[in-house]
């Protein structure tokens, strides 16, 4: 075992001895499958089950994981490895917001990709096809970044707002976690939600992402007249659409725009064909602000494994941090730092321009004394090695 791995193992193990595992999140631990990836050899261990938090703790202190997961599903027999024999009882609904799936301008500054076929490299998110060889397999190098997290945080708040206003799931009923890397998880675990089928979950995913949205469904034709349900006072999607459209329409300033303004304000019931045309034209501009950028695969999957709250993310050494809504509102990465004490001398092989308020852009190749959590992050990312 390398010295770096030995260090991580002892630090992680010590952390897990006192980690804040709670009985209310995740609920009903004995009904969950626990899975982990071992730090030592990266082997995935699945189909574990524990009757109590103390049993789980004992296990992870000894078998130190780089990643620790639990099943969003509840099972009759969570420890059985045949999925058919597990006895699915229901599953949480999890909204995963990961900045990997959201385009942010700063990715050009800090992310890179390397084609696994020809070695071609570039900045930002990986392209669909390699511009040089046409290959489609890439190694993506992405770093934690305040601006990216800010975008993810905004998306998470949007999801929480839609859950409340549209789905009637109040902020007190959701569990929020910083994922430990580049995003947030929002868990809904009420009795009615648990039984939702995959089809039902797909509908919810489409609702969040506005897939299949047909604006004409919010216009009703009666005789020669067309009535609009897009009003700034409306609930749900038509309301949000109307409010965003309203901001755009007042900038247009034509006579048709004035008519649409009145319709959106609810002062005029019917809408002209030209008015509808204008709305359809403005629509692409307003959709991004209404759409929630969630990972639909996670939402639809009723057998998903998800990071255990207060476990460590093996790629960053940061804590999967449970948050209240107000904590999310003022979230900074500081809150997820675990290894605060001390410093380490490391050699830097690669680094983002900026990391935890430190400028590391010109330090690649050098030996540095870094605060413990910065060094651990870089070691976890396999871009730093210990120096005497």
């Amino acid at each position: 075992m390398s010295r770096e791995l030995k260090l991580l193992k002892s630090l992680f193990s010590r952390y897990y001895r006192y980690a804040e595992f709670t009985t209310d999140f995740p609920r009903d631990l004995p009904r969950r499958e626990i899975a982990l990836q071992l730090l030592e050899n990266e082997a995935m261990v699945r189909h574990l089950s524990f009757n109590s938090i103390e049993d789980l703790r004992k296990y992870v202190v000894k078998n130190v994981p780089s990643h620790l997961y639990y099943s969003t599903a509840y099972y009759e027999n969570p420890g059985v490895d045949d999925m058919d024999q597990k006895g699915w009882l229901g599953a949480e609904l999890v909204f995963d917001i990961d900045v990997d799936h959201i385009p942010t301008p700063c990715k050009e500054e800090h992310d890179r990709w390397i084609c696994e076929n020809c070695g071609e490299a570039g900045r930002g998110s990986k392209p669909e096809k390699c511009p040089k060889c046409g290959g489609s397999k890439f190694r993506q190098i992405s770093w934690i970044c305040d601006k990216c997290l800010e975008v993810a945080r905004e998306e998470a708040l949007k999801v929480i707002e839609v859950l409340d206003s549209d789905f009637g799931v109040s902020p007190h009923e959701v569990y929020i976690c910083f994922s430990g890397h580049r995003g947030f998880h929002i868990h809904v675990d009420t009795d009615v939600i648990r039984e939702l089928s995959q089809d039902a979950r797909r509908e919810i995913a489409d609702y969040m992402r506005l897939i299949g949205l047909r604006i004409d469904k919010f216009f009703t034709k009666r005789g020669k007249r067309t009535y609009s349900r897009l009003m700034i006072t409306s609930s749900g999607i038509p309301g949000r659409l109307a409010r965003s459209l309203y901001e755009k329409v007042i900038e247009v300033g034509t006579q048709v725009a004035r008519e649409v303004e009145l319709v959106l304000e609810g002062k005029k019931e019917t809408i002209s064909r030209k008015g509808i045309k204008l709305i359809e034209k403005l629509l692409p501009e307003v959709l991004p602000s209404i759409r929630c950028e969630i990972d639909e695969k996670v939402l639809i999957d009723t057998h998903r494994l998800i990071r255990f709250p207060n476990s460590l993310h093996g790629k960053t050494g940061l804590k999967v941090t449970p948050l209240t809504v107000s904590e999310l509102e003022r979230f900074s990465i500081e809150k997820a730092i675990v290894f605060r004490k001390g410093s380490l001398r490391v050699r830097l092989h690669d680094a983002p321009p900026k990391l935890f308020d430190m400028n590391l852009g010109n330090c690649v190749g050098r030996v540095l004394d870094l605060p413990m959590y910065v060094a651990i992050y870089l070691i976890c990312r396999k871009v730093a090695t210990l120096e005497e």
Partner: protein
Amino acid sequence: MISTHIITIEDLVKYPFLPEATERIRRLNLSLREVLSLRDVVERAIKRATSRNYTIDLTDPDTELLSFYLSLVLAALTRDNVAIRRFADIESKRVSKFLQQEPLDKVVYIAKKAFNIDVKVVNGLIQVHFVHYLKYMPQGDLEWKLVNRVLHRGFVYLSLRELTRLIEEAYEKWILSKCSEIANSMIVFPEEITSLVDELRSKLRTVSSEVSVRRRRLEGVVDPYPPCIRKLIEEAKAGENLSHIARFTLASFLIHIGFSVDEVVKYFENLPDYDEKKTRYQVEHIAGLRGSRKKYLPPSCDYLRSVGLCPGECIKGIHHPLQYYRLATRSRASEGGVGSEQRAEAT
């Protein structure tokens, strides 16, 4: 005893799935053998199960109720999914017609009482909890997609007509689940029921289905593959780098119409990153031979449209690639000769 003034004895006959109706039957305390000896009940059971035009005799509630429950048992025992689905379709359409004549409060009562649908009426507006809406909404219709509805604090706004449609779907699901309950029960059924079950099965098999209209429109279509699948096959042949969802759609479609894993794997040979072992592993997953043991369905037209895989060349009323295939093969089969030669054409 009727528990509320809203529901009359006539209603129990119209809506035999209401708990009050089940209770009434239970009170009659008849064995299945005794029911089978009631000629009138048996005759009506076969008739109501197989005819869309059957008129219910509202003046003879017990005979009607018994005949409904007998038809349910008979349909279940056919253990024939096509027959059972057709039975469920005939029943639910009949109930839907009755519901359309009912006042709002009765429809709401039925939704709540029979199917536990969380429905409320506020200022004359009908609202259904989204969980129940999603459970019973008709599939493949953009009108019903949640994203095109007004959703407020957990409730979806519906018209009365739409609420009756939701009940129709709920009733259909109820029949299907009751049938599987009966078919899987340990009850020993009397010998004499067998001939009735056979009779019902063959009659249900010949009843015209609602899809026949759409099928006729597809007659003369040469290729039973929907345009989206045809396009994917061409692209795969041409060695284009298909997206994950495109590959999934093609593989799951082919598996579902009866291709073997080997045959499906061959379709991917020309893909730029083709790896026989990996492809086989993934196709086996889709075919339900690995992992969760779930045989995956290809995505619906709605979904394919949303990910840009729908060329938009289908006739109206198609909401799933498999629906297109089934209609097309059926219409061709009735003209004589489809099946293996069709498959050869595509490879």
